[in-house]
């Protein structure tokens, strides 16, 4: 368990983390969200004692990181996969890490196997792609078989295969009962893995809640269907108490108020042929966007007026149309992606 209490850190005159307090509970996946520059990496560096806080304190299982008897057996942390001496082979890189914590040599072979780098174990790390470096970094975090894992933006810059691998790994680690603390600037990364969310912006805490609470707070999910019998389905949906939302220039219907199974059943009962049925949770991303809107470091000039969302209006309507569409697409893409696993 990580306890962060009143943590503050400034670099020069830039405040990176400002009086931040939260805790990471054991046995869960905690997503650490915030826009770029929100202070996520700084917070992680402070947790690991790489940087020293100006105020506040961090403890892991009641101790400062540097006081842990065998740090690698309690915490596996990866902040930067490229933080490796390129001239050293993967095997020797892991060996020199294992030796600091008196871990047996066989662990090096085991974690290399686990991340699928056995064949390149003797190759120098400078020739590794980002995906391979990420695997090497993760192998390092697993050497000590720790109960707590910490990853900073683990999918950044990875190709789809790498992203999928990392997601599945995090799920597998969590399923083994480990605590996973993972940062991202994308809500979509957290949707399927995190149980708990800690959201920060400009170094300050914006939200600390369960995923369910966060979903409940946002305006719920919609179901997107495409069918050649759109009018027939729309009527049936309306009868069943669902709402067909306006829009959808491509002929697809966006339905709210019903879960995907209900929509599928309705279609079946009415003999409506479906070509697509997708859950769209644009609103989750939108809720995150709204939460962090005021704390985004750099924004494009066109919304430079910094208009804050109008209170009382559904989130979806507050977002400019193209942006919403784009988010719908990405959430969708993700679901179909998941479907192929």
């Amino acid at each position, binding site marked *: 368990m990580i306890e962060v209490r009143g943590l503050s850190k400034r670099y020069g005159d830039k405040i990176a983390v400002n009086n931040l307090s939260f805790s990471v509970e054991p046995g869960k996946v905690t997503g650490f969200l915030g826009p770029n520059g929100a202070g996520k990496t700084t917070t992680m560096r402070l947790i690991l004692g790489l940087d020293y806080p100006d105020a506040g304190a961090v403890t892991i299982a009641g101790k400062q990181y540097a006081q842990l008897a065998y740090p690698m057996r309690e915490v596996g942390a990866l*902040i930067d996969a490229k933080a490796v001496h390129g*001239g050293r082979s993967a095997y020797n890189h892991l060996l020199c890490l294992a*030796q*600091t914590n008196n871990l047996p040599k066989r*662990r090096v072979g085991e974690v290399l196997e686990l991340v699928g780098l056995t064949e390149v174990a003797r190759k120098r790390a400078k020739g590794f792609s980002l995906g391979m470096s990420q695997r090497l970094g993760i192998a390092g975090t697993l050497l000590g078989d720790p109960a707590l894992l910490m990853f900073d933006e683990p999918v950044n810059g990875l190709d789809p295969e790498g992203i999928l691998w990392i997601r599945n790994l995090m799920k597998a680690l969590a*399923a083994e*009962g480990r605590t996973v603390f993972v940062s991202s600037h994308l809500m979509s990364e957290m949707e399927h893995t995190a149980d708990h969310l800690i959201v920060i912006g400009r170094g300050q805490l914006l939200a600390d809640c369960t995923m369910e609470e966060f979903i409940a707070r946002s305006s719920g999910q919609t179901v997107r269907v495409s069918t050649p019998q759109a009018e027939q389905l729309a009527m049936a949906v309306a009868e069943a108490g669902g709402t067909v939302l306006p829009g959808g220039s491509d002929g697809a219907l966006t339905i709210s108020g019903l879960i995907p199974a209900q929509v599928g059943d309705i279609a079946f009962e009415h003999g409506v042929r479906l070509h697509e049925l997708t859950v769209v949770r644009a609103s989750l991303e939108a809720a995150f966007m709204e939460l962090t809107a005021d704390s985004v470091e750099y924004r494009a000039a066109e919304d430079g007026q910094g208009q804050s969302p109008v209170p009382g209006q559904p989130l979806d309507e507050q977002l400019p149309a193209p942006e919403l569409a784009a988010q719908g697409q990405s959430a969708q893409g993700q679901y179909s992606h998941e479907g192929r696993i």
Partner: protein
Amino acid sequence: MAATTTQPARPPVLPPPSGRAGFGGTLRSEFTKIRSVRSTYWTLLVLLVVSIGIGAAISAGTAANWSHTSPSDRATFDATQASIAGLFFLGQLVIVVLGAMVLTAEYSTGMIRTSLTAMPRRGTVYAAKVVVFAVVALVVTFVAAFIAFFLGQSLLASTHESATLSQPNVLRAVIGTALYVTLCGLFALAAGAILRHTAAAITSVIGLLFVIPILAHLLPSSWYQDLERWLPDAAGRAISATVGGQDPHLFAPWNQFAVFAVYTVILLAVGAALFRKRDA
């Protein structure tokens, strides 16, 4: 959903921990680090080649010209110093590069963040780095010094002026030069810890060891004579000399060596303090 608050028992993959991670493991780790990059081998090979090669070239050249050498030059010729001059002048430069890189390579590659995450007790990491580098440097400089000495003396045999280890001051000069060159490496290691940048560290150390003494020569000679014994390079000149008696402007060889040793220890201490205190 990976959501799970129930914790299935994970089979233990490691024996239960006892004690805590400390100096022994970190020492092994640092040894693995230094032996697992090619630059170490290249640097040490260059050190051996230039130290032995230059010493041999000077010795062979001297022997070939011996018949043309004036009696006064013959009287002041230091066969020991000639044979180990390569280690003294160029080996020093090479070891400075290797010493500086012990820490600066960690910063330039970003490895320092990984290293300090694995072993967050920074004093332990620093001490292990110093010990591993010192041991490697001692072994290599001793090997270089003795090979250069024996090879040089065999090449000088025709002059009948070649030295043996049993002669006064000779063993001191050979061992002392190896120790001096090792100290230069540690001096550079400390500079690397302070400056955290390879080029800056190497340039500064070369400035202090080579350029400052040259500039000091430009001072009025009485000033220079007062200052000379406090310059870092004086240790090397004093410790490697075996003939000509005591230089009146320098301390006795080991005392002169101690001056530089004290500088090195101070610099290492400053490096340690900064290494522990600064953000990584």
